[in-house]
């Protein structure tokens, strides 16, 4: 599905962001990319859709080589790669609907996007996606009127509007509170399962990663230092990725935080909203653990 072959990036400043990364992602697999700040996580996912130009190596999507493409070919590939951003990166002054429809920009001619005359099929799809992420009644609001969690849902809908074959997700929860972070990760997980979409998720929060992904790749100084299932991610591996730290204490504290968040959610009628997002998330979580 997605294959990186010895991918390298050196910035003009001389920093080696990536030093020969090779990996493969299969259909439907959710990969969590962890590592310290500056390890090259953002650069790696941006090299896949060429928002950042790699300086070496190759990227293959369905055995099509992406690194040599340009112009219209590159745009045709990009439109099949959905991307979700850390600070949502919605166009703040456009409406929710316009933001979701902007996922079709790679498919429609300029005059259609300029006059906002999208084909009805695209509009139907956008409504269905807004329904799916729980924002059906917000279609006409401007993006900057929404809360953080709602904006990230719009970001997810925009990525799905592209009919993607692959999702690239850059720190989806870095700007969100613990409860919303879990809801967003759960939503991403469910959507990937529904469509057997592969995803590469760049994530700071090791516990969230362990809870929601199939496979974890640890990146340090531009090199892969760990690649395996979340269960194998023990203290020794974390030390290899991040350096020495008291991992056990951190995880205990974080687990308590998560419990608090769940309790608070239950106390504030959060279960109503959660029920709207998908059925029985607790059960699936239990299955994962």
């Amino acid at each position, binding site marked *: 599905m997605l294959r990186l072959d010895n991918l390298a990036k050196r910035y003009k400043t001389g920093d080696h962001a990536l030093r020969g990364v090779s990996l493969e992602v299969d259909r439907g697999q959710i990969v969590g990319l962890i590592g310290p700040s500056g390890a090259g996580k953002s650069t790696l996912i941006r090299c896949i*859709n060429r*928002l950042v130009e790699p300086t070496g190596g190759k990227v293959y999507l369905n055995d099509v080589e992406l690194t040599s493409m340009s112009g219209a070919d590159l*745009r*045709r*590939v*990009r*439109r*099949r*790669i959905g*991307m979700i*951003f850390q*600070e949502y*990166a*919605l*166009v*703040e*002054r*456009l409406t929710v609907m*316009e933001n979701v429809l*902007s*996922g*079709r*920009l*790679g*498919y429609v001619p*300029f005059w259609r*996007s*300029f006059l906002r005359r999208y084909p009805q099929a695209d509009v139907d799809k956008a409504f269905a996606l807004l329904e799916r992420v729980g924002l059906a009644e917000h279609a006409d609001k401007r993006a900057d009127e929404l809360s953080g969690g709602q904006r990230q849902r719009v*970001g997810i809908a*925009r990525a799905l509007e*592209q009919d993607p074959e692959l999702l690239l997700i850059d720190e989806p929860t870095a700007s969100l509170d613990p409860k919303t972070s879990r809801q967003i990760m759960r939503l991403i997980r469910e959507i990937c399962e529904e469509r057997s979409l592969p995803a590469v998720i760049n994530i700071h929060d090791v516990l969230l990663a362990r809870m929601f992904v199939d496979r974890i790749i640890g990146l340090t100084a531009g090199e892969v230092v760990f690649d395996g299932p979340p269960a194998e991610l023990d203290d020794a591996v974390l030390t290899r990725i991040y350096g020495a730290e008291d991992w056990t204490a951190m995880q205990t504290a974080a687990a308590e935080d998560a419990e608090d968040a769940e309790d608070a959610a239950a106390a504030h009628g959060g279960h109503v909203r959660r029920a709207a997002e998908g059925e029985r998330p607790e059960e699936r979580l239990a299955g994962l653990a």
Partner: protein
Amino acid sequence: MPVRELDGRPVWQRRTTRRQWAIWAGWLAGVMLFVWCWKLMTGRTIWAFVWDAPRQAADIGSRMLPPRWSYIDKLLWPLWDTLNIATLGTLLGIIIAVPVAFLAARNTTPSALFLRPVALFIIVASRSINSLIWALLLVSMIGPGLLAGIIAIGLRSIGFVGKLLYEAIEEIDESQVEAVRATGASGAQVLDYGIVPQILPAFAGISVFRWDINIRESTILGLVGAGGIGLQLQASLNTLAWPQVTMILLLVLGTVLVSEWVSAKVRHAVI
């Protein structure tokens, strides 16, 4: 770091003693310069005229009042011309300034080596020449009248609108642009979805602000023959018809008040 030891404890001062003395010396030099300039300035003044000023002002004032209200009949048409010069000139300026701004902004220019310096030069050239000078040049080139006024206002507006707009373009949030590009959008689509929504409020504010300035500037363009109410002002001044001058100034004051109000309303509405 002006930290000293005093009785075994560190003492902190904002500046070292030496630096403090240097600053006092600087102030002293400033005061001396002011005294010297004052002497130079007043040495060439004929004080008899200055002491006479209140009487002269009262004299002109008495001749200016009351304004000649009936003169307004002859002013409405030139006033309409003035508004048209300002509005059409602003439009002309905006039409040229928008592409220039995109060429001048570091993040949208197609060629930082060649086109960007050209665009910046256009902006600086337009800004360095006052509307009145542009009008003077144009009247001698294309003759007196409204057209010279419109083009003069337009040429001066390019620099103003272009400069503020290209600064607004350089300040946009690049992550929104990146997100639009990631969907596979073409260059024109990235412009339409990623950049234009971000600069639209600034664009509306800048345009209305310039229109407001242009109304004030177009009232004097007539002094050099470029049409509008300035022609009447010049005629009245030349014939020492002070009550008419008062009437014109009152009318200009009213117009500027209205245009300020409109521009404040529009800017409030778009932000």
